[in-house]
């Protein structure tokens, strides 16, 4: 059984290999095999994820920490810094892996059809697989640094894929690459927060691990289950003696989640403490320094620990508030929350499969995953939780509002994604971590479905447009008509919903699946969104009622009110989209010529449509309509309980579903749908002339101003431009023109550096080189001449002189030779 958990490195390895093959041999293997490699890699990760899931369910959902082979540690500096490359297989990470790999596989299949004929087809699949690899690094890591590696990796892939069509003509490519840069820059702000949080965590706790090996994540649950398990065998012990004790132990070991602990419990009762292996239902036996971040945080709060920052120190609660605020900043970047959400709508410049996979289903949920993973910290930081709730709720309603005024089919979905992420973040804020995960999973399915559906529509519109265009050339050889046609060609936007209409009969599969996605997103019973959204609402209600502080209660009620309104917005803008795209009559020739997409695109739609209906039942509320008898009660919540200490707020106080709130939200949703139908449906749809197409709400003087505000996206980008970009540009212009060019180049370079260089050069060449160096060299020469002039006098030329010199020399040599002899004798 242990072997299954050891498979987890494959989650990263398989897509890495896929990306590697596609990067280096993609062009050689061709389009067909390139997509096959990508799809198979993705599908294999799902298989591995499923094996991990089955491992967990067969092993009492006990978390396993895996040290991948050949990777002995990761960062090790002396004895103080040790960050291992450890992978955590627990219920939370496996939940993420399951839905990410499943949705990714379908999107890979879809992309094979959608990207057909693209000149960089293989690179697209390489990027997708690379994204998957980094996503699994993100979710499977057991420490914040691995999370950060994945976090940055998916950010890079996001950048590459948003700007995938950077070379489109007529300035479109420029727009695409700008969108990619915008995403990158907005995320840099968030990453600053992540880094600060990681530094603070490391400073405070001396480790980045979530939990160390052997640590129990949810102590309460473990103890509860140990007690339950202990209750039964103890009776047996009393009545029947030792033989049964052994049996009782065996029963315990099988029946209980944290198997070993119960052996101890049973053993204590029979007085055989030593015989049983030491095992625990809590972490009291581990030293504080040996615990992971969360365990240490809880202990430090109990002890009232002060964190030393050199010149000052702060109480641990304050530090946790700081850490969580920085984490929140990171999450607002990656999960597109106020104030950093502006990049996500622009990110729709990427190919639609990318929007579906990265910017709707998986990557953008990384921020929420990170906060859910850090639930212990967030629960212990009431102030941050309040801010998180407010940010989530505000994002949910503002993005929902903006979505009502958009014409671009993908932009509506982008704002919808931001809005739904706001729901999840608000859920984290009120402490409903399980509900946030639940909504994340269901949202991944139906939002991927909607994006893929919109991609199918766009694809159809493009083909329809080309079709019409081609016929235009065939039919008219008249110069004027051609010219008119070409002009029209440039203006045509296949994503503009004003150009669509009446696609229901042209694309039946896309229509039906899109309808399911819409109903799921709008929260209509029994589609998936209903269950997950209403769990968030119910948990907000619980937080409002039973919150331990006034702040929590306030946040809970505020979140409930805002989120219900946002749910109404959701239903409205989604049905507006349905009416504009699928109902009514085609408003352009292109829309008339639309055909259904290829099977490789529609099959994933059908599968996702199926899941959009049924995926909500993975977490059926416990006391509702008897559904729990069929699908089980709150399965996801109970599954997650093993990794999350705080699955939902104030758990014992109520269920995870509140019929009153649920049906209030449902009623509001249905009302919003009928409202949207009365405004956009029937004969009230847009005029056929697309250029003048005006939204009925804009045409109405009462609502025109509000609609225009939504259409202008609340001037959010413009405000940022005024507040940040304008001053930044002015500052950089000042720095470039005045400071850099005038001062630095003209003055510093020309005057200070060039002239100074000349002066020093002169000094060195004239006095130093010519005077000093040459003087020394010439002096040596002159000295040699002078000495040799003296010496040559010795050469007289007279033989006599040489003879006497020779004689004296011989005498001298003899004296030297004889001297030691004389001394010896003397």
């Amino acid at each position, binding site marked *: 059984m242990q072997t299954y958990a050891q498979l987890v490195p494959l989650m990263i390895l398989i897509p890495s290999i896929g990306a590697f093959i596609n990067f280096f041999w993609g062009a050689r293997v061709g389009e067909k095999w390139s997509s096959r490699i990508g799809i198979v890699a993705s599908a294999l990760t799902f298989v591995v994820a499923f094996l991990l899931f089955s491992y967990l369910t067969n092993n009492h959902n006990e978390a396993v920490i895996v040290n991948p082979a050949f990777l002995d540690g990761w960062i090790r500096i002396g004895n103080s810094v040790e960050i291992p490359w450890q992978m955590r297989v627990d219920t939370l990470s496996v939940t993420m892996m399951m839905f990410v790999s499943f949705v990714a596989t379908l999107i890979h299949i879809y992309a094979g059809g959608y990207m057909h004929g693209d000149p960089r087809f293989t690179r697209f699949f390489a990027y997708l697989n690379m994204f998957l690899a980094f996503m699994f690094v993100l979710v499977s890591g057991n420490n914040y640094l691995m999370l950060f590696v994945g976090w940055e990796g998916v950010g890079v892939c996001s950048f590459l894929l948003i700007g995938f069509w950077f070379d489109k003509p007529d300035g479109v490519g420029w727009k695409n690459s700008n969108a990619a840069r915008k995403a990158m820059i907005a995320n840099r702000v968030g990453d600053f927060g992540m880094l600060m949080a990681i530094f603070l965590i490391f400073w405070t706790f001396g480790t980045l691990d979530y939990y160390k090996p052997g640590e129990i994540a949810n102590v309460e649950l473990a103890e509860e289950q140990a007690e339950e398990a202990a209750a039964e065998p103890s009776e047996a012990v009393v009545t029947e003696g030792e033989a049964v004790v052994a049996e009782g132990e065996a029963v315990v070991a099988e029946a209980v989640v944290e198997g070993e602990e119960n052996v101890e419990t049973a053993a204590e009762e029979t007085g055989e403490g030593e015989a049983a292996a030491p095992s625990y239902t809590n972490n009291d036996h581990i030293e504080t320094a040996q615990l992971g971040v969360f365990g240490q945080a809880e202990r430090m709060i109990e002890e009232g620990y002060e964190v030393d920052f050199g010149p000052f120190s702060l109480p641990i609660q304050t530090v946790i508030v700081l850490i969580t605020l920085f984490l929140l900043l990171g999450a607002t970047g990656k999960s597109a929350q106020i104030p950093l959400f502006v990049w996500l709508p622009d990110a729709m410049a990427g190919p639609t499969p990318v929007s579906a996979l990265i910017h709707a289903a998986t990557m953008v949920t990384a921020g929420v995953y990170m906060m859910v993973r850090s639930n212990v910290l967030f629960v212990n930081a009431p102030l941050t939780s309040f801010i998180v709730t407010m940010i989530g709720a505000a994002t949910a309603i503002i993005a929902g509002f903006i979505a009502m005024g958009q014409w671009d089919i993908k932009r509506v979905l982008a704002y919808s994604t931001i809005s739904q992420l706001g729901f999840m973040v608000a859920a984290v804020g009120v402490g409903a971590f399980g509900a946030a995960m639940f909504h994340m999973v269901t949202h991944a399915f139906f939002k991927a479905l909607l994006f893929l559906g919109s991609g199918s529509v766009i694809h159809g519109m493009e083909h329809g447009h080309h079709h019409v265009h081609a016929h235009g050339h065939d039919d008219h050889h008249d110069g004027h008509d051609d010219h008119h046609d070409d002009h029209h060609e440039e203006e045509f936007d296949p994503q503009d919903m004003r150009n669509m209409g009446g696609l229901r009969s042209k694309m039946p599969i896309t229509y039906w699946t899109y309808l399911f996605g819409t109903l799921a997103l709008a929260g209509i019973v029994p589609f998936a969104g209903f269950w997950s959204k209403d769990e968030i609402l119910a948990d907000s209600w619980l937080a409002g009622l039973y919150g331990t502080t006034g702040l929590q209660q306030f946040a809970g009620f505020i979140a409930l009110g805002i989120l219900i309104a946002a749910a109404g917005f959701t239903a409205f803008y989604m049905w507006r989209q349905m009416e504009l795209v699928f109902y009514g009559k085609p408003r352009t020739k292109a829309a008339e010529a639309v055909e259904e997409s290829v099977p490789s695109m529609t099959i994933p739609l059908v599968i996702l449509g199926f899941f959009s209906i049924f995926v909500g039942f993975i977490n059926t509320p416990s006391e509702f309509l008897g559904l729990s008898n069929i699908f089980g009660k709150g399965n996801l919540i109970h599954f997650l309980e093993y990794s999350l200490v705080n699955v939902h707020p104030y758990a014992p106080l109520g269920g995870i579903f509140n019929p009153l709130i649920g049906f209030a939200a449902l009623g509001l949703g249905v009302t919003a749908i009928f409202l949207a139908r009365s405004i956009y449906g029937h004969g009230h749809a847009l005029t056929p002339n697309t250029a003048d197409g005006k939204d009925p709400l804009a045409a109405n003087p009462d609502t025109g101003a509000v609609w225009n505000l939504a259409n202008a996206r609340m001037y959010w980008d413009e405000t940022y431009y005024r507040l940040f970009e304008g001053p930044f540009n002015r500052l950089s212009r000042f720095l470039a023109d005045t400071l850099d060019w005038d001062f630095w180049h003209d003055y510093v370079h020309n005057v200070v550096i060039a002239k100074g260089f000349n002066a020093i050069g002169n000094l060195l060449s004239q006095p130093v080189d010519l005077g000093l160096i040459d003087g020394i060299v010439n002096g040596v020469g002159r000295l040699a001449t002078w000495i040799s002039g003296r010496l*040559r*006098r*010795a*050469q*007289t*030329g*007279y*033989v*006599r002189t040489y*003879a*006497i010199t020779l*004689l004296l020399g011989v005498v001298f040599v003899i004296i030297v030779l004889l001297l030691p002899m004389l001394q010896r004798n003397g």
Partner: protein
Amino acid sequence: MVGTEAYVVLSMVLFILGAMGVLLRRNAILVFMSVELMLNAANLALVAFARQWGASDGHLFVFFVITVAAAEVAVGLALIVAIFRTKKSIDIDELHQMEG
């Protein structure tokens, strides 16, 4: 029998005479003869010591010296003849063209 000391003293006297001749005379022929004197002084000393120690090395050496001296005389006289032909003189004080 005359003692070795006497031979050595005689050899010394002959050597000094030869040396003085080389240093003081200006006639090249005489300088040459003085050189021969010095060589033979040395020969005398060698022979004397050879007799003293009863070793034949000294005698052997003397023969070499006499041979070399003969060769030297031949070369030296030829040089002197050559000098005389160019200078019309054999006064060695006039031969100082090598002066530095």
